[in-house]
């Protein structure tokens, strides 16, 4: 049974579901929601007596066991030791291409974002890359990105074992279908309709009349999130943790 939860809690819970079965989750810097989702998966697995989940939070000393500098994440991904990673994006298009560089032309982009970071690499090597961007608008979810930091699909003859797995926003959750190279709407968050999602999305996608509502956590999981996960988060993201509901 779903209990009432905040939108953030819904997203964190959804992230944990998208990570199901992953043994090692890497989370980029300043990514409290993905970190929370990974921590929730770890706690749930432990409760259910399932395998350990390792969560590596880049930029954290405590939740990061890398000892060979920031290149180790990339080596580790190439070795197949990382099961899931998160990417955002100034633009994400319907073919799963991600743009972290800029909009409106290159190189002298009128709108310039920080840059591609490790995306052009990790998107190929981490099996399950979750695209996570809270803003759900035609400005972000475009038909065609202005610059491809990391491509959603790849021609034959190029090694690729990873890529987009799902796209999660504050309004909906899509899966990515590698065979067709398109997104499929899997569920719509409470308070939105498929029609809303079609309007808010700049690309066409499959199952665009989806009537599934994104499930929220049950009472037990919500209690876990508001207790243990909130405290674990507070070590790395004190401000973010403080903004989450506390256990009664």
């Amino acid at each position, binding site marked *: 049974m779903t209990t009432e939860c905040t939108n953030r809690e819904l997203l964190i819970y959804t992230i944990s579901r998208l990570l199901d079965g992953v043994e090692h989750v890497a989370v980029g810097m300043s990514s409290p929601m993905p970190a929370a989702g990974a921590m929730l998966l770890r706690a749930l697995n432990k409760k259910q007596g399932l395998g350990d989940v390792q969560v590596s939070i880049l930029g954290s000393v405590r939740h990061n066991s890398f000892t060979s500098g*920031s290149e180790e994440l990339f080596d580790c991904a190439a070795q197949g030791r990382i099961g899931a990673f998160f990417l955002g994006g100034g633009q994400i298009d319907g073919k799963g291409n991600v743009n972290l560089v800029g909009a409106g032309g290159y190189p002298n982009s009128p709108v*310039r974002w920080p840059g591609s970071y490790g995306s*052009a690499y990790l998107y190929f090597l981490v099996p399950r890359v979750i695209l996570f961007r809270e803003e759900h608008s035609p400005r972000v979810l475009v038909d065609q990105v202005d610059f*491809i*930091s990391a491509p959603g699909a790849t*021609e034959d003859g190029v*090694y690729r074992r990873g890529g987009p797995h799902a796209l999660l926003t504050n309004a909906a959750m899509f899966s990515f279908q590698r065979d067709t190279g398109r997104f499929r709407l899997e569920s719509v968050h409470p308070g939105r309709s498929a029609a809303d999602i079609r309007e808010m999305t700049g690309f066409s996608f499959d199952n665009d009349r989806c009537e599934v509502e994104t499930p929220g956590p049950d009472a037990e999981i919500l209690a876990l999130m508001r207790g243990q996960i909130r405290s674990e988060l507070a070590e790395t993201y004190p401000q973010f943790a403080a903004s989450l509901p506390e256990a009664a």
Partner: protein
Amino acid sequence: MTEFVSPEAMADMIPSGVKLGLAPDGSGSCPAMIRFLIERGIRDLHVVCAPIGGMQVDMLIGAGAVSVLETSAVSLGEAGGAPCFGRAIRNGEIRMLDATCPAVFAGLSAAEKGVPFMPIRGIIGSDVLKNHPNWKVTTNPFDESEKIVVVSAIQPDITLIHAPEADRFGNVRLGRRREVMLLAHASKKTFVTVERISETSLLDDEKLAAGVLPAMYVSAVAEYKGAAWPTGLYAEYEVDAGEVENYARAARTPEGFLAYITGTRSAA
């Protein structure tokens, strides 16, 4: 072999026009030295970020000191986008070599290992590859059906970093920030400012040794306490988030940047 100098003298040893290697904010960045370079009117730098840049790179750009920027990203972290960087991009004032983190490391590894190139997986199909002059697609010599990217070696003329500690022999403790070790190995010269200088050799302690950059890579050391302020130093002191926000706000305009860079207290 390692010279011990003042921070000012070290700044004098870094001329315009060099390929300058810099560490990420908080992992070996040295904004206080960047101020000295700006005061001296340094120009025409090719800056290599290993693998990303922050406030110190934005300051150099704002001061008009950068002609080429090779990086995977520039950001002020929690304080948002890097304002001088964004402005310089819009105005076409710097030549941008957009990279991706592991490709920067591959280029530095090539220099470290003295080979002209390194192969790297991924990247194919991205516009990062299309726009990068020093990367190519080739075939795997052991499997002609596989296309793979090769990146050419990146060898900075000078790397400038801040570290917790050096000893009197020129050895420098970096700890687990191995990307800074890689950067120093790859560079022709490395200049290091440190929080403190140890009178006993850092190599004598087996527990420390794995995180120590040996003196043979270190051209000069300057003691300069707090020189990583406000960006912070891994395992020593945190970023001064308020100050970085002050910078971010000020640097929104060229005038604001100028006022900040000439007005604000330095680490000294």
